[in-house]
């Protein structure tokens, strides 16, 4: 994640986005099933439709710089994804894009900025905090892990692996929480005992990003 050349940076960012997209498409049914427990069963469907479109439009995105590319992806997503996930994921990608405005390459610190910006956007958009049983409960600890790694100048691949592990543990731990945001929050204590679909999705994505790193 310490890309110095713009080509490598672009490639790594593009690959990461592509991994996110293909993973979401591949996990449509699984993510829907997770959302059926105390939600309305469409989480996987919404993401899959949005990311299918991202893959379809892939070659046509403006690649003048990294931010512009990411902004194109964000626009596809917010125009294509409905439900809660449209605004949440669209905002996250858009904020990440803005965080690297006019950058031609990405340092570790830039990655942390992107994730921080995405988190801030998600919090603003949906009003959730850590502990409310949303995807933030995996995304925030994952980001903190990367922040520490970057500060310690850790080896990127090892750092990514640790981050994925943290995301997985945090996601599983949402089982114990009561949902306070989103549709699941209407179920009150009945949401206890099953993990948050969005948080699990974060873990699955992190794991696939690590796998695709090779």
């Amino acid at each position, binding site marked *: 994640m310490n890309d110095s050349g713009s080509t490598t940076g672009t490639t790594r960012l593009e690959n990461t986005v592509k991994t996110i997209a293909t993973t979401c498409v591949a996990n449509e049914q699984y993510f829907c099933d997770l959302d*059926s427990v*105390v939600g309305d069963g*469409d989480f996987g469907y919404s993401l899959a439709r949005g990311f299918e479109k991202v893959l379809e439009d892939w070659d046509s995105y403006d690649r003048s710089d990294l931010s512009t590319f990411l902004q194109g992806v964000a626009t596809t997503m*917010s125009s294509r994804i*409905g*439900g809660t996930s449209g605004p949440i994921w669209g905002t996250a990608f858009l904020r990440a894009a803005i965080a690297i405005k006019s950058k031609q390459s990405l340092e570790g610190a830039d990655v942390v900025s992107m994730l921080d910006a995405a988190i801030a956007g998600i919090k603003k958009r949906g009003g959730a905090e850590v502990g409310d049983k949303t995807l933030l409960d995996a995304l925030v600890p994952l980001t903190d892990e990367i922040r520490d790694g970057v500060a310690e100048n850790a080896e990127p691949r090892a750092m990514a692996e640790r981050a994925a592990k943290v995301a997985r543990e945090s996601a599983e731990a949402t089982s114990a929480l009561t949902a306070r945001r989103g549709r699941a929050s*209407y179920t009150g204590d009945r949401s206890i005992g099953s993990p948050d679909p969005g948080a699990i999705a974060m873990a699955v994505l992190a794991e696939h990003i690590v796998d695709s790193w090779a």
Partner: protein
Amino acid sequence: MKKFINDPQAFVPEMLQGLALANPDTLTYVPEFNLILRADAPHHDRVSIIQGSGSGHEPAHVMLVGDGMLDGACPGDVFAAPPTEYVLEAARRLASDKGVLLLVNNYTGDKMAFEMAEELADAEGIKVRTLFINDDVAVEDSLYTIGRRGVAGNFFVIKAVGAAAAAGADLDEIVRIGEKVNAATRTMGVALTACTPPAKGTPLFDIGDDEMEVGVGIHGEPGRRRTTMTSANEIVDELLEAIIPDLPFSSGDDVALMVNGLGGTPISELYLLYGIAHARLAEKGISIGRNYVGSYCTALDMVGTSVTLVKLDDEIRSLLEAPAHIPVRIF
């Protein structure tokens, strides 16, 4: 899955296509953005009224587009709020000189999409306001949730603001009326079965042969409690006991009473429930000025019902009485 569909992903567009074919003179269908618009809108001497929500609640909202009700509807996929861009596009196409009112049932996804769309429309110079509907008493407000859900009672808000818009009221006045009707409206539902979203293909939750879900949401969200099925009398009592003290409604009040079907319940049972609710309210000295029995806001094929009360005054009553013409009709 016992449904008349071709491809689950084509469910919403094919339904909208059928709706448009059935109403060629009055409706325009914009497939790229899932929009159903009045063919003759915008009227620049009227505020345009738009509602969006997930699909699966038909006739709400796409079949409520017509003179005296909605100028446009922007549905999302089944049970998923529409993408922001669909809402924005509806606002653009229906932007009238008098402005646009966006009606939204109070759910996280819808709220976010509509707030974003409002900001963007505003930035484009469209005069726009947003109004949230939250008539469901089943799920209590709390610090953590975004508040109560919008369910079948939204029919009354649409009818009232639609009538006011048709009469030429301005945007502030229409917002006042919408807020007033929303504040006077309370609903609670009960499900006997789960619903099956086409894309999922199986029921959204498991429920025993002798169980019911009291306070269910119109997306199959769990309600207040899962309990053993009881008689129609006891079910009506439980719903009214939740609804009546909530506003509260009291002796001497005049109300509109709606018994709404959730999609899989036949009208025979709805009239049976209506009779019970009518008698119970009469016993409490509450008189029923208007009544509504049918499937107004559904949860796909769910077997279930909801009861809505609206406290009437002269203003609300005359707005509900005003003529309107929409695709869902008998003749």
